[in-house]
């Protein structure tokens, strides 16, 4: 290429580049931590869950619940270890919504609410029941009933 | 470049073809998305026919991919100069067909979003796990091979790269054949003969695919394939077609010899409905005997005959794979030898299968991916075989 740099260097291109940089900077400033509190996406209003106290403390759970579940599932499925502390079924039993009886199904449901807010796909309940065993007693007579 | 200077209409043709290929590939993606959203209930597959039309397309493309590299191997490994100039195109087609086949295979999974799991969890008693390495290794090795062929400074490496590619591709086809060879439970599979059969099939189908693409490129550039090369490649294709026919005959003959397999062979070859039609009409006659006529009959042989024969061989390949993969599953498992069985799960019953539109579109999408890679590749880089080229004679109308 004989010509140097970006094709057609000149005042107009430099102004456009500057405008682009300012726009990026603007969005970066707008996304400062303080701005996140009053961001466009409303934070979900999830209930704390039954019992008043989780098996681990909240901050730990927020960061590590996926790792706990992942390790527990391998131990349960492959080794048959069925301790309940970190089992998904146990989580569901406490954390169901008092009204709907599920951890999915609305933007304020315990699992689905935060996952939608965080933009992380929630894969578990494609296979796992999203409500505790007792709630299914009504459907017990009809196998595989679609509620 | 010995090509004539490209006038504007040719560029338009390229963009039109590339766009068409991209559209069909996109449709294939769409079909896969539809299948993933709704589950495989929207396909013709069920608990008896678990591998359907997408696998027919995918296995064809993967087997042809490993076989098309043969053209390059005959050049680099066996030192035939006429094939050596065809090596780069052969390498490109290998990559293209492999990509297309894997496109279909991976998108037909029950959980295609779990490809990462397949790439990180390995059970090495499974051929599928080995195939993950064989297929990705193939991409890498062929890429290096192409580089050694097309980069002048690397030309000295083309022979060792060619050897490596040849060895790898034989192992890859062995892996593909092993998928079926290891299935002890089924009468249609579970035999070691499938591995050499797949290797010879790859020779035939790969060469046929190569000839089709080569003829198209030559016609596009208004060039003629030198008659001696055309004759040699035609003879080679004929030899491969006969070899496949022989191995298929041996497979069925030996299988039918055992009393326990006779009913299955009769189903496949005599009274199984669509399967005997596909075997005799589709594969034997249209896919093997008629191509041989077009290759070797004194009046029909020629550049046109070569292309017609290649197209028929590809059609025959699809017929053979359909009855191999789907026919093999349509016949019930022989769980209780000596008993007639009946159940709610299809025991003792032949399972009907009708390919559904999403499956066909997904398969077509895979072909389109291969097509797109080829079209873009030959446009951008120098893949046209550089024989002693001369323009096509006006009277012959080589199109």
């Amino acid at each position, binding site marked *: 290429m004989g010509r140097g740099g970006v094709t057609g260097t000149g005042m107009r291109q430099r102004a456009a580049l500057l405008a682009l940089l300012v726009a990026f900077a603007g969005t970066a400033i707008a996304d400062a931590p303080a701005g996140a509190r009053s961001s466009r996406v409303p934070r979900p209003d999830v209930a704390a869950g039954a019992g008043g106290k989780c098996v681990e403390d909240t901050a730990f759970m927020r960061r590590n619940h996926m790792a706990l579940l992942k390790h527990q*599932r*391998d*131990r349960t*499925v*492959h*080794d*048959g*270890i069925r301790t309940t502390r970190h089992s998904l*079924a146990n989580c*569901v039993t406490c954390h169901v919504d008092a009204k709907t009886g599920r951890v999915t199904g609305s933007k304020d449901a315990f699992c689905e609410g935060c996952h939608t807010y965080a933009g992380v796909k929630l894969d578990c309940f*494609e*296979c796992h*029941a999203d409500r505790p*065993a007792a709630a*299914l007693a009504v459907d*017990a*007579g*009809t*196998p*595989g009933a*679609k*509620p | 470049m010995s090509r004539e200077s490209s006038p504007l209409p040719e560029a338009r043709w390229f963009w039109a073809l590339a766009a068409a290929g991209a559209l069909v590939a996109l449709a294939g993606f769409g079909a896969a998305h539809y299948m993933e959203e*709704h*589950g*495989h*209930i929207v396909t013709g*597959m*069920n*608990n*008896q026919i*678990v591998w359907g039309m997408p696998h027919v397309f995918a296995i064809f493309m993967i087997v042809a991919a490993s076989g098309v590299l043969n053209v390059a191997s005959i050049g680099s490994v066996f030192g035939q100069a006429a094939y050596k100039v065809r090596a780069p195109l052969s390498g490109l087609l290998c990559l293209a067909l492999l990509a297309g086949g894997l496109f279909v295979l991976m998108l037909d*999974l*029950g*959980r295609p979003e*779990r490809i990462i*799991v*397949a790439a990180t969890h*390995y*059970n090495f*008693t*499974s051929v*599928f*796990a080995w195939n993950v390495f064989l297929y990705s290794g193939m991409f890498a090795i062929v890429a290096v091979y192409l580089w050694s062929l097309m980069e002048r400074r690397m030309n000295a490496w083309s022979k060792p790269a060619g050897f490596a590619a040849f060895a790898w591709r034989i192992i890859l086809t062995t892996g593909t054949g092993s*998928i079926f060879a*290891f*299935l*002890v*439970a089924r009468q249609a599979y579970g035999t070691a003969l499938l591995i050499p059969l797949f290797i010879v099939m790859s020779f035939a189908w790969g060469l046929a695919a190569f000839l089709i693409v080569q003829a198209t490129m030559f016609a596009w550039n208004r060039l003629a394939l030198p008659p001696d090369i055309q004759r040699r490649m035609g003879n080679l294709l004929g030899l491969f077609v006969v070899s496949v026919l022989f191995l298929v005959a041996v497979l069925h003959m030996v299988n039918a010899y055992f009393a326990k397999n006779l009913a299955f062979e009769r189903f496949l070859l005599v009274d199984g409905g669509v399967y005997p039609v596909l075997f005799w009409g589709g594969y034997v006659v249209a896919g093997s005997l008629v191509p041989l006529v077009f290759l070797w009959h004194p009046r029909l042989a020629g550049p046109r005959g070569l292309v017609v024969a290649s197209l028929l061989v590809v059609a025959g390949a699809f017929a053979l794979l359909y009855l191999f993969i789907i026919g093999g*599953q349509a016949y019930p498992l022989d*769980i*209780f030898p*000596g*008993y007639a*069985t*009946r*159940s*709610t*799960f*299809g*025991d003792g019953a032949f399972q009907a299968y009708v390919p559904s539109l999403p499956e066909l579109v997904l398969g077509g999408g895979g072909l389109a991916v291969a097509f797109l890679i080829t079209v873009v590749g030959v446009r951008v880089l120098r893949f046209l075989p550089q024989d002693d080229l001369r323009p096509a004679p006006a009277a012959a109308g080589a199109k």
Partner: protein
Amino acid sequence: MSDVDRGRRQILAWGAAMAGVTLAPGVTLFDLAHGRPPSEPASPKVRWGMLVDVNRCASDCDACVVACDKENGLPGEKTPTSAQWIRKVELKDMRGQTKSLPMMCQHCADPPCVDVCPTGASFKRADGIVLVDRHTCIGCRYCMMACPYKARSFVHEPVTGQRPDVPRGKGCVESCTLCVHRIDRDQIPACVEACAATGHKALLFGNLNDPASEIAQRVASYRTTAIRADLRLDPGVRYQGL
């Protein structure tokens, strides 16, 4: 009797009582090799198995199938795409004699499905139960091609209303789990329970490795076969009267 002797007798009596109390649960539950606490992994010392008495299986009865569907949350309808973990197979031999038997995952000791699974999702637990780890299953259906008994089903549609003990979903392959969630709670599989309830008592479940268990004794005394025995898969499910 001297005080020392009385003291000794008391100790002996208490000792015997304590020993009895400690041992008794083990003795009565010995049949099912009970007592594995939830925190303990499954043990290879146990090999769960099932014995099907074909002579007692009635042609017009499908209590085992209904029970399995209900226990595992399977759809009741029987179509080519529906999941069927257990099925009744009607047999008729070349001379016209008919038999009926249930067919399910045979829980082989050398399972072809485990050999062919690319991700290792299809696996054999230490106590012999062959399972699918649905977290790792990619839905390639190779295990379905490999299974000699056509035991596996693929889930063709989205699933809702799953039983909490039995997670299952679209896109994965599944088969009879020998009611592993019940076994781990010291219960027996639902099909065995249902068959006993009908009075046919064609199904027997137990620990094949425990010589005192009923199943081990029956298998040792009567002629039982494995289906497709020539494949040498050593299934945990054996059939008597076939």
